[in-house]
């Protein structure tokens, strides 16, 4: 019994010890970034900008939750950016037809889940590698989104469509004497709350449910999982479906924030999501990863983007910097795997 005490101290028992270290270093990186950007731009470290970062990160964060699950199975999902756009287009078009906002958005999320389900079927049943299957879906979903809209944005969707992306909980607004409203407390943006809820749900699924355990098993050793009676195909199909559904939700948040449906939105978002997962410690070889890590990763990317914007760095330079960060993160991942 005496040997039990040190065993229970370690929290992330599925992951090599290096992973908690990795997570710590990711948090440290995030703090260093925040600290550095506070100096380059005085407006960076303010409540309002903090909320902006939260808002911007929520989309990447939502994508990263699903991406993490897929990456833990040893796969990858390149289609989330396109699925996000298609889900938005479906929601926008059905609102135009006359559907109320809530069911239209639900339909959008369902579209995302359906695309993810197709990904899973193609990967599990047709035995096509995740890279190729989701690359195909990336083109298919984007193509459908552009075809349905004629590549034109859908606007004038009504105020209700913008609530999810622009609303906030506990927002306090006071009318001033001059007739203009004054925001006393900007509130907690709905997208941030949604991200928190989904992240907790994702953590619960991965760590506490059989489905999550099977995701780890499949990614760690697919053949062993199959021989042990894990339904490998079903696990994969559900992982990709979850990723698709989360892409759908991310689409709703993003389009709602713009109050316009843009079929061109979300190009290359999958790369941000993958980068967030990898920075957060997920291994592209499968079997390793965590939601909390990916959330830290998402915030590193969000803060990096926002901070560089505030410092006036051009979009081109930003691409270069984020590219270097991604390569660096994957390189660290490889060193970790060697040990």
């Amino acid at each position, binding site marked *: 019994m005496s040997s039990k005490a040190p065993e229970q101290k370690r929290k992330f028992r599925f992951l*090599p010890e290096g992973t908690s270290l990795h997570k710590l270093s990711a948090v440290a990186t995030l703090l260093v970034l925040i600290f550095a950007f506070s100096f380059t731009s005085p407006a960076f470290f303010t409540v309002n900008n903090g909320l902006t970062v939260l808002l911007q990160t929520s989309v990447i964060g939502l994508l990263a939750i699903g991406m993490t699950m897929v990456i833990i199975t040893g796969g990858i999902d390149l289609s989330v950016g396109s699925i996000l756009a298609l889900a938005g287009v479906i929601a926008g078009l059905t609102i135009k037809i006359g559907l109320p906002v809530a069911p239209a958005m639900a339909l959008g999320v369902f579209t995302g889940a359906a695309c993810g389900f197709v990904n899973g079927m193609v990967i599990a049943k047709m035995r096509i590698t995740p890279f190729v299957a989701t690359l195909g879906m990336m083109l298919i979903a984007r193509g459908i989104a552009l075809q349905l809209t004629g590549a034109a944005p859908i606007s004038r969707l009504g105020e209700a469509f913008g609530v999810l992306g622009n609303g906030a909980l506990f927002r306090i607004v006071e009318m001033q004497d001059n007739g203009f409203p004054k925001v006393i407390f900007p509130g907690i943006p709905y997208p941030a709350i949604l991200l928190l809820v989904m992240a907790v749900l994702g953590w619960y699924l991965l760590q506490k449910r059989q489905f999550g355990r099977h995701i780890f098993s499949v990614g*760690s050793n697919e053949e062993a*999982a199959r021989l042990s009676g894990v339904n490998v195909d079903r696990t994969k199909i559900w992982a990709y479906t979850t990723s698709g559904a989360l892409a759908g939700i991310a689409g709703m948040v993003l389009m709602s924030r713009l109050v316009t449906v843009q079929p061109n939105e979300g190009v290359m978002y999958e790369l941000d999501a993958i980068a967030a997962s990898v920075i957060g410690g997920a291994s592209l070889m499968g079997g390793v990863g965590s939601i909390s890590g990916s959330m830290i990763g998402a915030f590193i990317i969000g803060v990096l983007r926002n901070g560089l914007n505030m410092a006036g760095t051009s979009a081109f330079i930003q691409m270069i910097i984020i590219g270097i960060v991604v390569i660096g993160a994957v390189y660290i991942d490889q060193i970790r795997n060697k040990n």
Partner: protein
Amino acid sequence: MLDSVQISQPLVEMDNIVKTFGGIHAVEGVSTDLYSGEVVGVLGHNGAGKSCLMRILSGAMRANSGEIRVNGQTVDMKSPQDAREFGIETIYQTLALANHLDAPANLFMGRELKTRFGNLDDKRMLSEATEAIRQLNPNFKNLRDPVARLSGGQRQVIAIARAIYFQAKILIMDEPTAALGPSETAMVADLIVRLKNEGIGIYLISHDMHDVFELCDRVMVMNKGRNVGAFRIEDVNKDDVLSLIIKGTLPDSWEPRGGAE
């Protein structure tokens, strides 16, 4: 009377099993049986079809034709889950462990224990795994480590514990001692005797002649996909078995040796 009926009923009968891959005949019309409380050695070259035959029995592979009967009932095993429902457990040569997961997660892989809310019952899985594993190896301490970091012997213990925890009636052991040191090999040998005495039927795939003659009641030898001989262990010696493995036939001078004693 009742006893003799139970003894005459084999646990497993495999009848005329055929498995082909394209034009290659991996298993050609092999029949074998296994009784309760008996260890049957399955011998042969690499590629003789022994692992293939055992994979068919463990549900990991489906035969092209042939019949499998468990306790006299014809069964159709589409997956390892099906085989497990008939009490067939397999210890694979590769061990089939998920390296990133810890010992309890591996032991219960595919058969996770759940609380009544449907959540994973990690606490119970840990305590059950601790008990099951310490029966085999009392020195096993680091149960929460990913199994990638454990020694070959410890990994083997997890694979064995996984098979016997679920009350196997039929156990397939594919080279269970290949990766083990002397003391661990002795532990596995003791375990096989214990399980056999509990009435479990064991198919033991092994290359180690010493193990085979020590532990097995019967041997069957496979050569080029065929069953070239099944004997009580008393009727053959090592040279006879080697001849069967290499040539596919017994030495010309062979006669049942058990009868001479």
